[in-house]
């Protein structure tokens, strides 16, 4: 009953969003503000509707209603309540509903603002949001796509077969039948997904995906209405930043989950699913930088449009890929019901957006000229080129196996070596640019002005790099094939770190001298007065920290696999590892636990005990839990492999030494801080009421006016 109610609500939400699109179109073309207002209210109505549907689904999940096929697929009786609730996004149908729900929340939030100054944008923001929402709700609602989270099991009275349908077929009874209901159990969520990282990772990613729809909606509104100034960028600046923060966090959490749970000693494997989530981040990051050029100089209007259109397309693409295995082969794609629908939607929205852009092409010409190859805008363009270069590598690597299979029938793998080789130099270039670009001025810079700000940090960088190489040569064991690249990477990272820190220091010292206040208070107030700049610098520092971690694990990781007998000790990367004991037992939730205990020593000193585990769930799904000793210098990461051979007498282990990887996670915390600084609401002209702001606007537009 509740399932049918939920489905009914979804149908109403779908019709409401379709109505909202129609009403907005009608209101716009007939110049009837009432219809636009009605469209806006209809769009806002989808939020309570979808919330109701979501609550309904949560209730079904919480109460183990296995008559509902989605509940059966993602939960089981042994799962704790919080896992049963978060299983909402543990399967495709639920994920789609989650997406639509977030979309409706964001669209509502953005249309609650004061629209007095931007009335002409409203119908188009509503149309873009509602079209996107209608598409996602439509996937849930149309029985053809088989993604209805409220579909129920029906057993045929003719042959007893059980299938999930939205509507009761002829000659069937509900399944499980009343006598089975009490004992019938669900499939249960894949144990690999029962991890805190996996519980927060999808919502973060989806929040990022969904909030990027808002700047896209405004971009389309600006194109259609022909408002060629940077108003749409200013309105959506914080949305973009927050979207970007969530997307970044989603990626980092995914990496952390892989590191903790997948048991292969790494965090990123260049898997198509990972890349699918990474691609919108690349265009989004490029967008975040290049919109600044439009704000400051009134240039690159076409390019910003292209970037946000690409980001939107990649977001839909990413949503689709992360949940379905369609990239594995052409056949999987052809067989999936929603594959063609997604591609159709991406195609139509992309072509429409690009057509709009071409239609407005002439109106979007630059208001200023490029003055110097070393100006900030020129360097930002170079940054964009590098991001797009990485995007091309990723996109091509992801789709090439499909092309190959389609044309030659040969299946190929495009794996990590390809991506690492192709993107490595581009990433290094980005890190260097990240240090230099903030030093250059808008409009005009010369080698001389750059050099003055650059030479001191550069000298420190060279000294530090020499020290690093000297350290490596006194500890020969760290030198490997990657060492030359590591030096380049280290140089780039150190340079950017020192330049950025020097910028902080220079400005804070000047202020503290002038104001005669404490250095740290100066630093604090300076950052407070120019949040965007210093937030950006903080993010750059965070990326540098993350890069240190990445260089550490990518270039200096060592591993070994050994079978050890009880009491045996081995030496590995400066550690002494002793296999102390092994236990195999059944845990209270029926999983079979294999647990080894390892004593770790360094220089004869006992450090800690690690307990790598290999759990086998009742359905046979295994899960590797590494024993990790984590410090800022390195991680010692031990996993139990080939578990069926493990015993107290002889157990096989795989041991990884991951230098510096903790910096990656540390950097991500700083990243959050930096983004919050940059996005923090302050008393800049933008957030003041329009009346006050009116006086200040001319100052802002003076460059673009001439």
């Amino acid at each position, binding site marked *: 009953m509740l399932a049918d109610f939920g489905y009914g609500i979804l149908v109403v939400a779908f019709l409401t969003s379709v109505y909202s699109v129609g009403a907005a179109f009608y209101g716009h073309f007939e110049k009837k503000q009432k219809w636009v207002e009605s469209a806006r209210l209809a769009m806002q109505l989808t939020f309570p509707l979808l919330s109701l549907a979501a609550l309904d689904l949560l209730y079904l999940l919480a109460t183990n209603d296995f008559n509902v096929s989605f509940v059966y697929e993602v939960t089981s009786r042994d799962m704790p309540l919080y896992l049963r609730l978060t299983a909402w996004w543990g399967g495709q149908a639920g994920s789609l509903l989650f997406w639509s729900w977030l979309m409706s929340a964001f669209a509502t939030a953005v249309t609650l603002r004061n629209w007095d100054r931007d009335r002409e944008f409203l119908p188009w923001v509503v149309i873009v949001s509602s079209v996107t929402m209608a598409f996602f709700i439509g996937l849930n609602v149309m029985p053809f796509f088989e993604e209805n989270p409220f579909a129920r099991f029906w057993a045929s009275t003719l042959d007893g077969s059980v299938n999930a349908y939205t509507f009761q077929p002829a000659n069937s009874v509900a399944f499980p039948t009343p006598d089975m209901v009490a004992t019938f159990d669900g499939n249960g969520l894949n144990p690999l997904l029962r991890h805190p990282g996996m519980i927060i990772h999808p919502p973060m990613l989806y929040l990022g995906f969904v909030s990027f729809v808002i700047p896209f909606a405004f971009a389309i509104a600006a194109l259609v209405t022909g408002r060629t100034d940077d108003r749409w960028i200013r309105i959506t600046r914080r949305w973009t930043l927050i979207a970007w923060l969530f997307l970044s966090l989603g990626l980092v959490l995914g990496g952390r989950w892989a590191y903790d749970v997948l048991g292969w000693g790494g965090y990123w494997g260049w898997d198509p699913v990972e890349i699918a989530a990474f691609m919108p981040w690349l265009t989004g990051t490029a967008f975040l930088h290049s919109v600044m050029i439009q704000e400051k100089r009134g240039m690159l209007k076409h390019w910003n449009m292209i970037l946000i259109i690409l980001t939107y397309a990649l977001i839909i693409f990413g949503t689709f890929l992360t949940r379905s295995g369609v990239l594995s082969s052409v056949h999987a794609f052809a067989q999936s019901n929603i594959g063609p629908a997604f591609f159709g939607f991406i195609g139509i929205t992309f072509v429409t957006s690009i057509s709009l852009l071409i239609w407005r092409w002439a109106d979007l010409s630059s208001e200023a000229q490029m003055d110097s*190859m070393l100006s900030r805008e020129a360097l930002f363009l170079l940054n964009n080129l590098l991001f797009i270069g990485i995007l091309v590598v990723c996109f091509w690597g992801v789709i090439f196996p499909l092309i190959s299979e389609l044309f030659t029938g040969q299946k190929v793998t495009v794996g990590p070596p390809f991506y690492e080789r192709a993107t490595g130099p581009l990433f290094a270039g980005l890190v260097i640019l990240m240090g230099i670009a903030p030093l250059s001025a808008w409009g005009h810079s010369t080698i001389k002005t750059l050099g003055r700000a650059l030479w001191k940090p550069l000298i420190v960088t060279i000294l530090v790099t020499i020290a690093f190489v000297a350290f490596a040569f006194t500890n020969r064991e760290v030198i490997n094939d990657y060492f030359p690249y590591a030096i380049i990477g280290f140089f780039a990272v150190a340079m950017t770190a020192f330049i950025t820190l020097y910028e902080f220091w220079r400005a804070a010292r000047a202020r503290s001298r002038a104001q005669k206040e404490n250095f740290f208070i100066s630093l604090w107030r300076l950052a407070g007065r120019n949040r965007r700049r210093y937030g950006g610098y903080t993010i750059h520092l965070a990326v540098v920290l993350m890069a240190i971690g990445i260089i550490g694990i990518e270039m200096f990781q060592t591993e070994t696999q050994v079978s050890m007998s009880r009491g045996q000790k081995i030496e590995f990367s400066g550690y002494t590892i002793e296999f102390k004991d092994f236990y195999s037992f059944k845990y209270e939730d029926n999983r079979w636990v294999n647990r080894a205990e390892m004593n770790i020593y360094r220089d004869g000193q006992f450090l800690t005990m690690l307990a790598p585990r290999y759990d086998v769930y009742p359905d046979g799904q295994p899960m590797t839990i590494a024993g990790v000793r984590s410090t800022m210098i390195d991680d010692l990461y031990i996993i139990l492999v080939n578990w069926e051979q493990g015993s107290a007498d002889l157990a096989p282990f795989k041991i990884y030494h991951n230098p510096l990887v903790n910096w990656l996670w540390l950097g991500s915390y700083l990243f959050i801080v930096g983004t919050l600084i940059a996005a923090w609401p302050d008393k800049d002209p933008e957030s003041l009421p329009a009346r006050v702001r009116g006086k200040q606007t001319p100052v802002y537009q003076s460059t673009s006016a001439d």
Partner: protein
Amino acid sequence: MKRILTITIFTLFLALAFASVAFAQQSGPTDDDVNAIAKQLFCPVCENTPLDVCPTQACAQWRALIKEKLAAGWSEQQIKDYFVTQYGARVLSEPPRTGLNWLVYIVPPVVFIIGAVILYRGLVSMRKPAAMTVAESAPATKNESAEDYMKRVEEELKKRN
């Protein structure tokens, strides 16, 4: 740079020489020898999982097979070739450099170079007209060197006192 490379290569060479001596003394190939090859191969059944970390039974058997072949004196290349003939090119971590597969290596650099050329030409053409007048007419706040900025910061700070 060159010297470091030379030293690195030399060190590697030494390490290899030692490894092969150590190898000769042992009874059979170690798990590390097996993983060194398995790392470069992809599991033929699971999607996108390198063979050295794949937890499935099938992959454990494939690793055992590599061990067997190594013990029989096969070289790394021979083993890889064997896997390719058995399971197709998809077991390699990169497409083999033949026929249509060249596209995977050629397209990204070509696109990147085209992008770089477009960017360069765009910058040059944007710079040509009236480069000087803009620099002069633009207001100071938008167009300042780092030092000017510092001056302005200090001035503003003084004003506030």
